[in-house]
């Protein structure tokens, strides 16, 4: 074999290696996109397009049957002036404040109790038990709750009668129906926050508690000065998700009370549904949807901005 041949062969090998390296790099570049493509396509088709369509629709009057007609900002003006829409947004805000506070408070308290006081097998049981309501259909749960909270024949009033409490009109008075809607919603949703808190608690190093104990911290002081600060990143995530979910509450009030009595349990998403699918005012429904989205975005942005003050990362 001549030297020249050897050189050629070496060059060819090097060339092939270089080519293979380049194609490997190219593959590395497009491979992630190839894997992401189905998701991007799905998101584009089923999330982005409807969002854009919905925003555009807010500027049209459309009843499905006739052709849409451009009305500018009329839909926004009309929904802002509509007392039912205003009440529904106010209800939603009140609902969010009360339900989220209860949901997070309950989830945190139970997570601390379960994580700290119970043997391992009971922990597993309660984790499953508290998460269980979340996997049930909200509509089915609400139908069931209608029976439980029936004023005349419901189990709840029957139980209360044993301690001498007269029948409570749960679903037929504004206060009672709002209370039941919140109760059912919190019962069904706190399991998710509970699991987040369980995860957060597990990630707090035991040394930190030991150090706090050496410094004399016991009982609730330990939780106040160690658990809560170190759990703040989890609390932020849990609260952001809980607020976004609560702002979109629909199933429970719709099935339990249909928004009544009066407008007492009518929520923003319920008004979107009624405008679109019952009154065939898809433009107005979109306008309400756009307003609700802006509110959700503003609240979430505010949460992240404020989080700099109360979230501590280890």
């Amino acid at each position, binding site marked *: 074999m001549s030297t020249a041949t050897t050189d050629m062969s070496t060059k060819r090998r090097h060339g092939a290696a270089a080519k293979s390296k380049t194609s490997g790099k190219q593959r590395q570049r497009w491979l992630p996109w190839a894997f992401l493509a189905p998701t991007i396509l799905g998101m584009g088709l089923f999330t982005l397009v409807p969002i854009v369509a919905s925003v555009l629709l807010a500027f049209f*009057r459309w*009843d*499905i*049957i006739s052709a849409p007609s451009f009305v500018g900002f009329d839909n926004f003006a009309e929904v802002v002036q*509509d*007392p*039912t829409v205003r009440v529904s947004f106010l209800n939603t805000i009140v609902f969010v404040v009360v339900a989220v506070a209860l949901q997070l408070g309950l989830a945190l308290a139970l997570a601390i109790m379960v994580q700290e006081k119970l043997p391992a097998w009971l922990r597993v049981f309660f984790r499953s038990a508290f998460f269980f309501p979340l996997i049930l259909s909200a509509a089915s749960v609400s139908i069931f709750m*209608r*029976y439980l909270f*029936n*004023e*005349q*024949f419901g189990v709840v009033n029957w139980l209360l009668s044993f301690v001498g409490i007269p029948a409570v*009109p749960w*679903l*037929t*008075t*504004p206060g009672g129906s709002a209370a039941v809607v919140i109760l059912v919603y919190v019962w069904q949703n706190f399991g998710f926050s509970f699991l987040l808190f369980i995860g957060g608690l597990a990630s707090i190093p035991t040394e930190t508690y030991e150090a706090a104990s050496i410094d004399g911290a016991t009982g609730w002081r330990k939780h106040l000065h160690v658990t809560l600060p170190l759990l703040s990143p989890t609390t932020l995530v849990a609260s952001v998700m809980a607020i976004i979910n609560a702002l979109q509450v629909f199933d429970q009030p719709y*099935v339990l*009370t*249909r*928004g*009544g*009595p*009066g*407008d007492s349990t*009518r929520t923003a998403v319920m008004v979107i549904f*009624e405008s679109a*699918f*019952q*009154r*065939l*005012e898809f433009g107005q429904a979109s306008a309400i949807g756009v307003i609700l989205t802006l509110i959700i975005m503003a609240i979430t942005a505010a949460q992240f901005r404020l989080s700099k003050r109360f979230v501590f990362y280890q």
Partner: protein
Amino acid sequence: MAGSNGKLREISRRTALGALGAGIVGATVASWPRLTGMDIPGRGDNSLSIAIMGTAADAAARQRVIDAFARVHPEIRVKVQAIQAADWKDFFTKILTMVAAGTPPDVVYVATEGAQLFAEKLAHPLDEYLRRDAADMKEYFADVHPSLVEAFMYKGSLFQLPIDWNAANMYYNTSALQQAGLERPSDNWTQADFRNTLAAMRKARPQDFTPYYWTNRLFGGVVPWLYANDTSFLKETKSGGGGWLWDSFYAQDPSRGLRSGGYQWLEPNADDPRVYESFDYLRGLVKDGLGVRPEEGGGNSLVGLFASNRIGMTPAGGYWVEGLHEAGMKEDGFDVQFFPRWRTQRHQFGTAGYAIMKTAKDKDAAWEWLKFSSSLEAMRLVFPTPNTTPARRSMVNEQLYAGRGPKHWKVFYDTLDKFPTTGPIPAPPQQAAVETALMKNVSLAVSGDERQLKQALDSMQRDLEIALRRQA
């Protein structure tokens, strides 16, 4: 070895990707009919697609009618699509989304609640077909009360043929009445008699019993009380026209003079003093523990409660009979009477029938289905049990109620015959918005003091104005 491992890994990855790709293609091919909606009855072929409210079992139950229809019209293929919905409002919503998706059915079973919405926007009038086949249709109209037909007239045209219907009559528990020491109420009992009956029932059974149970909805809620008091929450007027139908089919009917081109509800009427009076009466029943605060939603739970003797009286239609029977109530355990008289004894009813969509592929074929469905043969197949009141008078007979009750089943059809001004549920094309406006204020109106009642009716008036102003 390293090289061979690498090759193995490469092949394995390729194989995996290939298998994944093949899997995706296979799944897509397998689910193609679902993805494209081709598996929806009537889609992609020339079948007449018919949408009804109900379950798959309801669609299957229609098969006998489809088979019978196929014997008469072998050239027309029919597919029934049952759409499950909580109420008629939900059902219409689903039909409208099918319209929006560009896949509307050819024929839809529509109740009074949606009759004018369909007539205004979606349905094709039947006038030309009725004129053409007048000779065939005479027998049907002779057997169906004109009030039911008038409910499907809109601006002088007929859009549906009534197949079944229900008036808001008063069901009562016979043992509760006996325990209260009372006889069956008379046919022309008044709202005062009604209240006295409830009071006697309450006295006889103070615990675990509700003398009067009603739900907050359009049918059987507050409206029958408004009708009995010769008023309504919407001003009721009638449009002209329609003479062609009445003269053809009901020329000899004693109520011919009452008939019109259809009902119109164009203005709110919640500020009428009689509306206040009716609400105040119901408020009094609630306040004195004789009736419940009405709950939102349907009355499904009521059947079980009534069948277990925990409810004294409730307004319902003939559709309740089969439900009570299935819930185990004996035929003499309950009975039915006309709704009590106030200023009038006008009742409220709802009816339903097929409407041909404007977009139907073959309207002539759709008409043949409508005509067959209104025949005695088809209706006997559809209504073997009293789970509704058939529109044909001849079918509301001893045989239908045998073994199920109630004893006075004649009340159902007599409601129309004895009270010919009995009218349909107020359901303009904007019915969904109107119903929401009504329901959201009813429970507040009857659950508080007089001031709250006044406020709720003011609110209802305002909400109805907005609802009627809006496009249907």
